[in-house]
């Protein structure tokens, strides 16, 4: 699983799962482009990666704006000359304040779709011409186990992640003739800032978890729904991605793979 000199863009790469993915790819010696809305954090993360001994750069990118991500791609090409890996990780659970509402609001539906679905399409559209010319490329889309089966909680988020899985299948077919692999990864339960908010929402609106601190909601849910009875980590997600973008997985495309301790079986 050697990735030396491969250039990987990770959207939403400054923090959380995105940063964790970058950390794993660094172990395999990939060059990391930290693409994020938050310039300062992206710079900090990129300089952390550089300190680990790999080329790294930060780009400010808003995946909901095609112009923004196209400019980022141009900057990456100016520095590295090629793009081998795109990890479409940037995602939201809803619009600002989504976790304070029991129901999905109009703005939550729009935010989830704009970032989680169209954001992936925008970044893919910006990067895929480069990969087509190279006749080589690996694209990984971060979906979620929420996208595997509709659940009462977070319908806007679940529906957007189901769309990610479906989009992955379509683009895999479209790009296969150019030797580009496109796969989706569906993380299960990871303790991230997003899950902190999910926990708050459950504690408020779900009787089973009423009044619990969000970390306790999370721990209870691990026991309730994860057969392996342990949380998943950004490192777990990064490990699968490192495999999928390596030549070991050259004949895997169009698939969505759960990293969820057995919560959903596919």
């Amino acid at each position, binding site marked *: 699983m050697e990735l030396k000199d491969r250039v990987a863009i990770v959207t939403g790469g400054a923090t959380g799962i995105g940063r964790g993915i970058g950390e794993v790819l660094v172990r395999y010696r990939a060059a990391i482009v930290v693409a994020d809305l938050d310039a300062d954090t992206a710079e900090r993360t990129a300089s952390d990666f550089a300190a680990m001994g790999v080329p790294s750069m930060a780009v400010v990118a808003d995946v909901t704006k095609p112009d923004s991500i196209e400019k980022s791609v141009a900057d990456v090409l100016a520095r590295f000359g090629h793009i081998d890996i795109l990890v479409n990780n940037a995602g939201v659970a809803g619009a600002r304040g989504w976790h304070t509402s029991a129901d999905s609001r109009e703005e939550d539906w729009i935010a989830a779709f704009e970032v989680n679905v169209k954001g992936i399409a925008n970044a893919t559209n910006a990067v895929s011409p480069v990969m087509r010319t190279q006749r080589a490329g690996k694209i990984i889309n971060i979906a979620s186990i929420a996208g595997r089966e509709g659940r009462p909680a977070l319908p806007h988020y679940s529906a957007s992640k189901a769309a990610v899985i479906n989009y992955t299948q379509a683009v895999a077919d479209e790009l296969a003739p150019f030797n580009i692999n496109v796969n989706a990864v569906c993380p299960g339960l990871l303790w991230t800032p997003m899950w902190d908010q999910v926990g708050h929402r459950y504690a408020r609106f779900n009787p089973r978890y009423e009044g619990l601190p969000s970390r306790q909601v999370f721990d209870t849910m691990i026991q309730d729904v994860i057969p392996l009875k*342990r949380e998943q980590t950004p490192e777990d997600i990064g490990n699968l991605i490192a495999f999928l973008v390596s030549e070991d997985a050259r004949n895997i495309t169009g698939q969505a793979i759960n990293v969820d301790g057995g919560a959903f079986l596919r």
Partner: protein
Amino acid sequence: MLSDRIAIVTGGASGIGKGIAMVLAQRGADVVIADTSIENATDTARAIEKLGRRSIALETDVTRRASTDAMVSTTLSKFGKIDILVNNAGVGGGREWWTRSHSNGDDWDRAYMVNVMGIVHGIESAQAHMKERRAGKIINIASTAGRRSVVGFVHYSASKASAINVSQAFALRLAQFGINVNCICPGLLWTPLWERISERRQSHLPPDQRLSPREYFLAQVKQQVPLGREQTPEDVGKLAAFLASDLARNITGQSINLNGGSVKS
């Protein structure tokens, strides 16, 4: 990646099983080759020893629980533990299945006994040891045919769908013991099985209109595989090696398609 691990590969003497065994050995594992053909198993075990790993060949019939029990006990007496069990042994049908265009009762029975019960026997024989150690990686080989039925190959398709389901059942049952159970669904690979499928599918054609088995196979690849290339036993081995490693510690109960994009769900 797999240093000091002990792995058993059923059907490990040839085809996909041999590819899996070789890759596991390349990644550091010692490998037991369990196969109905002791001659072929011995050849493969020697090839693994040339990689600098330990290997033994065991004559094993996965349709008999007594035989998988012996496979496990011999492995334990030779190597002391089992970290990885790859249930790969499979058949296309009953005796001379490739000479028939339709499944007969023997095809159904053999496909079920080897492709499904072979997995059940392998796991049931190995699980007590793995439970006791609270560790183990089990990988079952199903097929793309288990995801989408192949016309005219209904007994095989059904058995592979069942292999996927059995993988889920054991994943749920064994998770509490820290054992991961996953399944791989390979697509189009040039193996003895596919050589026979090529013959079978063209048996109704006059001899002068038949393609060679290899040509027929490559035409299928071109028609069905978006990436436009065949998959290989080594591809399956690499996915198996990943799933058998600690890198995949939180992946269980999954069936992963390795088919160049031909089937996506």
